């Protein structure tokens, strides 16, 4: 197997797209995690549909390229089927915060041991620049030429409320920082969530803004929900305040996949048990 994780596919992201940063961070993280003893075949990546999702074609690892909005349930299915796998989801903001938001909330709620990484470019890019759930109010796009009427919502706040046990924000242009977040998220036992700010040079160029405002969180108390929310509310995805990146919250709770397969022992031929059941039903 190739050492560099690259597939032979030609990359069709726009030149200079910040998705390249996320791709690099994932590759770095997998290579480091391999050295920590997680062999390559144990990684599975699922994606939704959008610019982000092309990443499956660029990575030479197990992948399931799903439907728009449905990358998370695919990943949950994989995890309950084989808890030994490390399941990573790459989804877009349109995917996870618009089309498939119910899955995001419930995956966090049940604390299933998967990692969800959002390529948050804060617009629908592959469909040519419409507003998404994290576009700021007033966003000018092709479906909102007079400005988006809805304010953005704060996905990190939602994740805390939903029961996620690992909540972080990264920045696609800070590859080393993002690599480190991904490693922590994959090693976290439970539902881990990273919102990766991902400037889109074509439809919503936030590159300069982020470079000015993004700062790395200091080491802090990750067990306190109150403090996590305080830090999360520093930036609400609408206004121009400072933007903290890093881990906001990290706690341990029982995971759904463990609980769902507790005591499970597959019976190869269920015939005798069926006859036992039938005997009671007469």
């Amino acid at each position: 197997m190739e050492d560099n994780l690259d597939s032979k596919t030609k990359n069709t992201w726009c030149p200079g797209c910040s998705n390249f940063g996320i791709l690099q961070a994932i590759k770095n993280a997998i290579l480091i995690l391999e050295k920590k003893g997680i062999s390559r075949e144990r990684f599975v990546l699922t994606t939704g549909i959008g610019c982000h999702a092309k990443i499956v074609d660029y990575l030479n690892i197990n992948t399931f390229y799903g439907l728009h909005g449905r990358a998370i349930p695919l990943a949950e299915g994989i995890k309950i089927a084989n808890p030994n796998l490390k399941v990573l989801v790459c989804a877009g903001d349109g995917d996870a915060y618009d089309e498939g938001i119910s899955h995001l909330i419930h995956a966090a709620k049940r604390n299933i041991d998967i990692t969800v990484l959002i390529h948050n470019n804060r617009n629908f890019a592959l469909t040519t620049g419409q507003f998404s759930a994290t576009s700021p109010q007033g966003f000018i796009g092709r479906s909102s030429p007079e400005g988006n009427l809805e304010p953005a919502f704060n996905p990190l706040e939602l994740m805390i409320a939903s029961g996620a046990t690992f909540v972080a924000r990264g920045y696609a242009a800070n590859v080393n920082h993002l690599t480190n977040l991904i490693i922590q998220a994959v090693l976290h036992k439970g539902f881990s969530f990273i919102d990766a700010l991902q400037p889109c040079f074509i439809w919503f160029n936030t590159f300069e803004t982020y470079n000015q405002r993004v700062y790395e969180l200091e080491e802090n108390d990750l067990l306190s929900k109150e403090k996590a929310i305080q830090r999360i509310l520093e930036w609400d995805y609408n206004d121009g305040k400072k933007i903290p990146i890093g881990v906001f919250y990290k706690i341990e709770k029982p995971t759904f996949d463990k609980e769902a397969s507790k005591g499970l022992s597959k019976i190869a031929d269920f015939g005798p048990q069926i006859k036992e059941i039938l005997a009671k039903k007469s």
Partner: protein
Amino acid sequence: MKNEFSVLIGGAAGEGTRMTGQLIGKILNHFGWRIFVYEDYQSLITGGHNFSIIHASKEIISAPKKEIDYLIALNQDTILKHKKDLKEDGLIIYNSDQIKKEKGIGIPALSITNQFSGKPIMKNSALFGALAKVLGIDWQAVEDLLKREFGEKAEINLKIARAGYEQSKTFQKIEKLHQTPLSLLTGNEAVALGALKAGLDVYLSYPMTPATPILHFLAGVRKDFKNVIVFQPENEIGVINIGLGSAYAGKRIMVGTSGGGFALMVEGLSLAAQSETPIVIVESQRPAPATGIPTYTAQGDLLFVLSAGHGDFKRFIVAPGDAQEAFYLTGLAMNIAWKYQMPAIVLLDKEISEDTFNFDEKIVDKIKIEEPIFWDKKGEYERYLDTKEGISPLAFPGEKGIVVKSTSYEHDEFGITTEEEEKIQKMQEKRLRKYENFKNEIETLEGIKVFGNKNSDKAIIVFGSNKGVGIEVGKELNLKVIQILIFQPFPEEEVKRALSGVKKLISVETNATAQLAQVLRAHDVKVNDSILKYTGRPFFVEELKEKLIKKI
């Protein structure tokens, strides 16, 4: 004694009539009688009017009949609604504490229950005891059954049943038939068992009547036998996508719902076809459009399941007509889904799902786990390898040294997205070749069954729960009766062979637009007429007979 008789037990929801209906079925079953139980209940938790009709016969009959021999009433409503259906020589057994005086056997069920400090629901036991006495059943048989069914809770029920038994009198002693009792199973339970026999690993479902009891039943199996994962996700879209994820990782999965839930799953159905991921979908029909009538029956989703999903693809569709067929066809659907890496749909209706049928355990051994075609572990793995048969060998993520790429996009053999004309055509043709082989195999299976007078030039054609009523009426009117079991691929040749010599063909369907006739006509089968019912209730034998006499 007669060759058949029936008992109707009715009361408000929450009064426990359904449970008692099952007990009546079981005790008659022990006397060698063949049993069919029709359930009629409303979409509410307490109040309203629910009833069960327990039909006992010397030979298997799987159809409801209007006329009843014994009417057991927990409340006044039951008398009002059903007394008209009581045969001339029929008998009413009623709760005299809560029902005005009637001709028949009045049992003060509430007083008896209170006397033994029982819960109100235990009134049923008094009436059950009274019925046992009416049928001349030995007390010992009643005691044995209640002990077996209620375990530790049997004590009070036994006292209450005994009092009901003693205050009743024997009307007609039930004959002990010299045939082995069969099991009693609903179609939903049979679907669950068929899937388990074919290796079910994960069952996923969002509650929706009438498929919900499959979820409950399998949750019980999970608890007792620890061999299956049962998961109730946030919605049906979650259900099918979680299912496809599990199947991609190598687990045999089934999902269950009704028409509305299936509508939500349809994008996922198309994903199953494109990604070539095996899945079994149980669709138990109820009256629609939209929410429709949740707890009643219909066959209005036939055309929907045949055509659901965007794009060109095939699926395997089976439509069982009783619990036995539900077991076998679900097992078959699981094996076919895996062999051909495609979606399979088990089409039920509320009567198949929730009515109780006799079930002969001999069928259990006819379903075995059939292994799909696995990768031979040689060379580089390609998930969508273009083979002669169109079936690409399977491998699952986690296998050392390989990469498994599944996708919703059109793709190359490795699973990488493609927009190249040549590759697009090649992949579409690979899947079409797979469908061709699948069709050839299905042609060797029993796609239809023929009952009744096979030489008659008049025939009726049915599917699903109209099988039972069709057979009964066919017998009485000397007709040929054809039942469709497989809808896709459609057993066109078999149907045409069965129709040779038939001059008049009538479809009998529980829908408003004769969907079965539409399917038949699309396959160049001439259908002369249709008898349709769309009130949410199934055809009763007397009713269908009357309607058919006018048509033939």
